[in-house]
């Protein structure tokens, strides 16, 4: 599996080039010597899976983070950006994947944040408003410049973010997932704007997970995998299949459903569970959903963003209140119990966002691992050091965390190992049912396979496993049963022999062009 650092043909129309760009965070190599060109007046699209290094590369090109090694060549000269505004002065601006707007300010103030149009007496708000209105007209969006950003829906906020980048007359515009919250019509308008920009000589770098959509606008395609460029070509020479092949690489086996044993009794029973939207709109994000999981069974929940997967799992684990229904663990109704009581009954959750909800960054690997099972080594009010060490050693051995005895800082581990710590922490409580919300998020493929292998081993010993995912390939790995969620309800159930297309159709995933 050696990376293929193909050097693209040196072309004269390259406005900005990355030359052997590498970026390491500690001993994790996010980028391993990437070469690629941004073509003048064209749309260069970057393809790659989560964690392939796309966003890191864009942050380097826009001066947000410095590269560990390698050069950035602008118009034939090697340049070094010390900050994002440095890069902006060179005509490079970026639309970040995460919105960077101040919700308490108006659209106008957000667009001109930090670059206010000044006059002798202050800020020329009228001129700013006029320009903001013109930008909104270009984007065919009916937003008053005086509206507060917090009053806009997510898609409109993204439009404002785009408008802000457009308001700077940049030569190179980097768009990192600009369409993730946009409707189909808004995407069409955006593409029209992009075409208009390129015809005026602006170079665009485009990143998107919507492959087909991105392919429509692409002039040059570059594919990244595991921090290295695997392929690049002109749009006319490629198709979707080419992109997917280069993105995913050789098929990595994520395992198959464990067999050779019979499922036990029903371990988890979810009965007519409803969850009301946290924002208080009264809308049910989970709508009278019922699901039974037997001991030893692995159930995968697939669904698009907003389907209610996270809300369902958090409500079952006790993190979110139910607005209706019951949760039963091995015959006991746990609906009214606290999270810690549910853990005692054997129901645990591995949360989606391990940085925010899974790890205590101020504590060591070992302290994180033992956190959920302190009671097991506490006698007469005091924790037993040896008892704790035994729990930690056991967890490290069973789930193969690469660390030295648990005393290391949790932040020194790679994403995959951190995720294993969160899983190991919950497994140390000897649960009957484990819920995992996107357990493979942000970890590399090797760690992913290990996590799945670990889960199927435990399932074979009678653990009921429910995991959610947004990658179809993961549904078709270890799950005995695949549940597709759509708008808070189960829209379909499949056995392990289902095809990807069937799952995606049931999720409501538009397979349009």
């Amino acid at each position, binding site marked *: 599996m050696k990376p293929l650092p193909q050097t693209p043909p040196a072309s004269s129309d390259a406005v900005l080039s990355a030359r052997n760009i590498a970026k390491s965070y500690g001993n994790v190599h996010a980028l391993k010597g990437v070469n690629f060109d941004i073509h003048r007046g064209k749309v260069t699209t970057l393809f790659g899976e989560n964690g392939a290094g796309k966003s890191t590369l864009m942050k380097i090109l826009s001066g947000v983070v410095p590269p560990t090694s390698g050069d950035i060549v602008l118009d034939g000269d090697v340049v070094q950006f010390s900050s994002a505004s440095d890069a902006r002065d060179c005509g490079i601006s970026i639309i970040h994947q995460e919105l960077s707007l101040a919700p308490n300010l108006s659209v106008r103030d957000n667009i001109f944040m930090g670059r206010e149009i000044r006059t002798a007496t202050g800020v020329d708000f009228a001129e700013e408003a006029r320009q903001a209105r013109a930008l909104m007209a270009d984007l065919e969006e009916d937003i008053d410049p005086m509206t507060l950003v917090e009053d806009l829906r997510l898609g409109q906020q993204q439009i404002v973010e785009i408008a802000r980048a457009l308001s700077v007359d940049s030569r190179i515009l980097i768009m990192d997932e600009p369409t993730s919250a946009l409707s189909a019509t808004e995407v069409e308008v955006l593409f029209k704007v992009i075409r208009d920009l390129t015809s005026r000589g602006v170079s665009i770098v485009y990143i998107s997970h919507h492959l087909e959509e991105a392919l429509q606008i692409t002039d040059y395609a570059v594919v990244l995998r595991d921090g290295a460029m695997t392929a690049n070509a002109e749009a006319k020479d490629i198709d979707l299949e080419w992109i997917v092949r280069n993105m995913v690489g050789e098929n990595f086996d994520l395992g198959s459903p464990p067999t050779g044993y019979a499922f036990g009794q029903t371990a988890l029973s979810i009965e007519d569970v409803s969850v009301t939207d946290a924002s208080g709109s009264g809308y049910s994000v989970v709508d009278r959903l019922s699901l039974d999981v037997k001991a030893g069974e692995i159930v995968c929940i697939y669904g698009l963003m907003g389907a209610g997967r996270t809300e369902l799992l958090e409500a079952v684990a006790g993190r979110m209140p139910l607005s209706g229904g019951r949760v039963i663990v091995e015959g006991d109704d746990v609906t009214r119990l606290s999270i810690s009581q549910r853990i005692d009954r054997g129901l645990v959750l591995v949360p989606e966002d391990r940085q925010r909800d899974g790890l205590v960054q101020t504590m060591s690997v070992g302290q994180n691992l033992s956190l959920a099972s302190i009671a097991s080594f506490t006698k007469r009010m*005091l924790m037993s050091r040896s008892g704790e060490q035994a729990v930690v050693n056991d967890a490290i051995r069973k789930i193969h965390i690469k660390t030295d005895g648990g005393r290391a800082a949790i932040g020194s581990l790679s994403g995959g190992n951190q995720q294993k710590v969160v899983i190991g922490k919950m497994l140390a409580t000897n649960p009957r049912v484990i819920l995992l919300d996107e357990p493979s998020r942000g970890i590399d493929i090797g760690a992913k396979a290990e996590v799945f292998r670990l889960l199927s081993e435990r399932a074979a010993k009678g653990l009921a496993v429910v995991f959610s995912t947004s990658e179809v390939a993961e549904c078709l790995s270890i799950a005995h049963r695949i549940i597709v969620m759509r708008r808070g309800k189960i829209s379909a159930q499949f056995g392990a022999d289902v095809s990807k297309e069937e799952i995606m159709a049931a999720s409501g995933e538009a397979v349009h062009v």
Partner: protein
Amino acid sequence: MASSVTTPPRSGLFRDGFDLGRLLLEGRAFFALIVIIVVFSFLSPYYFSVSNFLIMSSHVAIYGILAIGMLLVILNGGIDLSVGSTLGLAGVVAGFLMQGVTLNALGVVLYPPIWVVVLLVCALGALVGMINGILIARFKVPAFVATLGVMYVARGFALLMTNGLTYNNLGGKAELGNTGFDWLGFNRLAGIPIGVVVLVVLALIISLVLNRSAFGRWLYSTGGNERAAELSGVPVKKVQVAVYMLSGICAAIAGLILSSQLTSAGPTAGTSYELTAIAAVVIGGAALTGGRGNIRGTLLGAFVIGFLSDGLVIIGISSYWQTVFTGAVIVLAVLLNAVQYRRRVKKTTETDGPSASLQPTGKGQTADATHGKIAS
């Protein structure tokens, strides 16, 4: 390829080798204390003597006890501005009980013995702390505001109880069986003032609680990441209420010792002591964001402040200058904390970065990740 990502870090005791700067930085409170002692010993012949150290230590005891309670609150990620007022209120209530409680209905005057007074005052401290804790844990009032309000209320009650006056008669009477209040402030155990003994005993108990009990681990984890702690089954709300109660009890104990030392209980006692306690905790290296800090550092912090201000008194520097010096030490300590934690954060984010930057942080992106990826 995967292996390069999951290589274990070469961490351990000597990760960076021996680093003098780091040693000085991490042991700064200790070195500061040594510097203070050395400097003042040169400046004054009276400073370096056992008797002076014991006197200074009994002053430190008040701040130290408050600081121990404050440390618990700060480890939890909160702040307790009410301890100075609680200290004052505790002293006044003790003084009030010593004067005898008249029960009109029964026509009797009760003179509770000292141990009852001590217990009642500690219970009062716990009650004030519980109010703080419930406001913060249940009603989600920011700790700063909740304890600021309670600070005023407690001070107000102390003033109301005495009409602004001071109880001077705390000796009790032998025939009433309530003598012995001065024991806390004046007596010595093997030559060591009782206040210092109380400080040491409290420090040992709390240190054991922090390092060896489940409660200690819960406290560190809620301070480090409340959401993660909650999902791991830690009763975060109970922990939060408990730390404020413990802080209140510490304040009450400090109030008892202070009024015993002064042989009087005034309603304005302990004004702005909460800030000194916070300063001691901060000088001791605890992070105001929670999750980091220990008893050893906090005690050192209390001794730095106490030995510095007493030293300035001994060499006869104006009290205005004392204020300036104390302030400068606090700012310096916080500055060094910032340096230390920035180093640590940098280390963490450098290794942590990829998982943070490579995974989509917005909740929305992941679901979209495959949208259309394999669509045909």
